[in-house]
């Protein structure tokens, strides 16, 4: 089909039928339409260079170049549409896939990613990111929540309390993301909620990226004494990003309520049934 999209009463997500990538997000309730290209990339880990012998490792994120490499230029897609769920399954490579999902009544787009085991047979350590690129004019600003405290404004290549000499254009702009990261242009806000603490940044205006997995071949010399390299074939990681598109003025209502639902998510307990009546006595 030339139309590849999923939609409920609040959200519509459109995908490029040629590449399989998410390319557009629409908030039907507020009549907001934002081109959003989402894809997976990986940074090639530094093993040291002329400027510094520092390698990328467990403590240190240091890519060997500013631009990450794309995992795949297209995704094999499959679509599931039922009354209770609509999903686009994207397979980017043997070690990177994603399900983009909408349930009825849901005001956010759910991206469930599965990454790993990261191949390192080529001798390159890899740090994998999910990146959202939009046309929002964010003027170098983005917002993250830090260590469970309030959401802080982050400005690219800047520190509020000293004059920064930026020597690491990627890692020097990465910040902790404990539950959310967002960008806005004064009118529209794009928020990404995470299900775990991750590193994140906005390295270009309109762009948001989150590191989802990493596998490294060198020890960074900061005390661990071994590289971030699990035994065997490596780890599979599965997690979720919840994406909300809102007006900037009202976005907080949406992402705060949804983040509560994520942190205090319902717990499922199963039983075969037919149990005996239980009385305290």
């Amino acid at each position, binding site marked *: 089909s030339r139309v590849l999209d999923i939609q409920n009463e609040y959200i519509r997500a459109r995908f490029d039928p040629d590449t399989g990538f998410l390319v557009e997000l629409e908030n039907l309730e507020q009549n907001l339409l934002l081109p959003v290209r989402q894809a997976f990339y990986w940074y090639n880990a530094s093993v040291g260079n002329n400027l510094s012998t520092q390698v990328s490792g467990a403590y240190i994120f240091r890519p060997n170049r500013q631009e990450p490499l794309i995992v795949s230029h297209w995704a094999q897609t499959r679509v599931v549409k*039922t009354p209770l769920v609509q*999903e686009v399954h994207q397979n980017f490579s043997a070690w990177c896939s994603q399900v983009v999902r909408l349930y009825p009544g849901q005001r956010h787009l759910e991206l469930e990613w599965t990454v790993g085991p990261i191949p390192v047979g080529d001798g390159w350590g890899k740090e994998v990111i999910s990146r959202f690129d939009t046309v929002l004019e964010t003027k170098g600003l983005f917002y993250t929540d830090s260590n469970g405290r309030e959401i802080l404004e982050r400005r690219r290549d800047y520190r509020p309390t000293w004059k920064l000499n930026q020597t690491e254009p990627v890692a020097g702009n990465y910040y902790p993301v404990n539950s959310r990261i967002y960008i806005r242009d004064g009118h529209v806000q794009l928020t990404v909620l995470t299900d775990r603490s991750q590193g994140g940044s906005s390295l270009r205006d309109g762009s948001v990226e989150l590191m989802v997995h990493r596998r490294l071949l060198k020890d960074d010399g900061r005390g661990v004494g071994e590289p971030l390299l699990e035994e065997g074939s490596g780890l599979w990681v599965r997690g979720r990003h919840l994406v909300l598109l809102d007006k900037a003025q009202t976005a907080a209502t949406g992402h705060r309520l949804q983040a509560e639902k994520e942190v205090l998510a*319902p717990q499922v307990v199963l*039983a075969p049934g037919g149990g005996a009546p239980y009385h305290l006595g």
Partner: protein
Amino acid sequence: SGDSAPLNEAMAVLQHHDAVSGTSRQHVANDYARQLAAGWGPCEVLLSNSLARLSGSKEDFTYCRDLNISVCPLTQTAKSFQVTIYNPLGRKVDWMVRLPVSERVFDVRDPNGTIVPSDVVILPSSDGLELLFSASVPALGFSIYSVTQVPGRRPHAHSRQPRSQKSW
């Protein structure tokens, strides 16, 4: 008897950044995982006791730890089972339950015994099946849904084609 203290202690140890960031040696990371798993066992018993008292029924409660990879021996083998959903949030939530199953037609009943809409979808990555239904759970409370396999009814599993389906 159940006990939440071992999980409390494991969580306290896991406050160290080494436990979540990858800045520990592998054998240390393995030990963090061991402590967490050992703490969860007696906590499950505590939860089962609590649910038995609150619901008034002593059940053989099962906690499927591998639901994120669509594995749950009980739901994949039992012809009928109960799903208790506990909501720790201070407001009512509607939440989509997803459970791995091996059959294609189920009746799902809410706590009042009313049949609620459900679907079985095929997972394209594995060809496994998952049962979906929307559960409504009160604030700081729980709802118990009953799921029963329906033999002989025409399979309702949805295929991978991007076609729309009539709602139940």
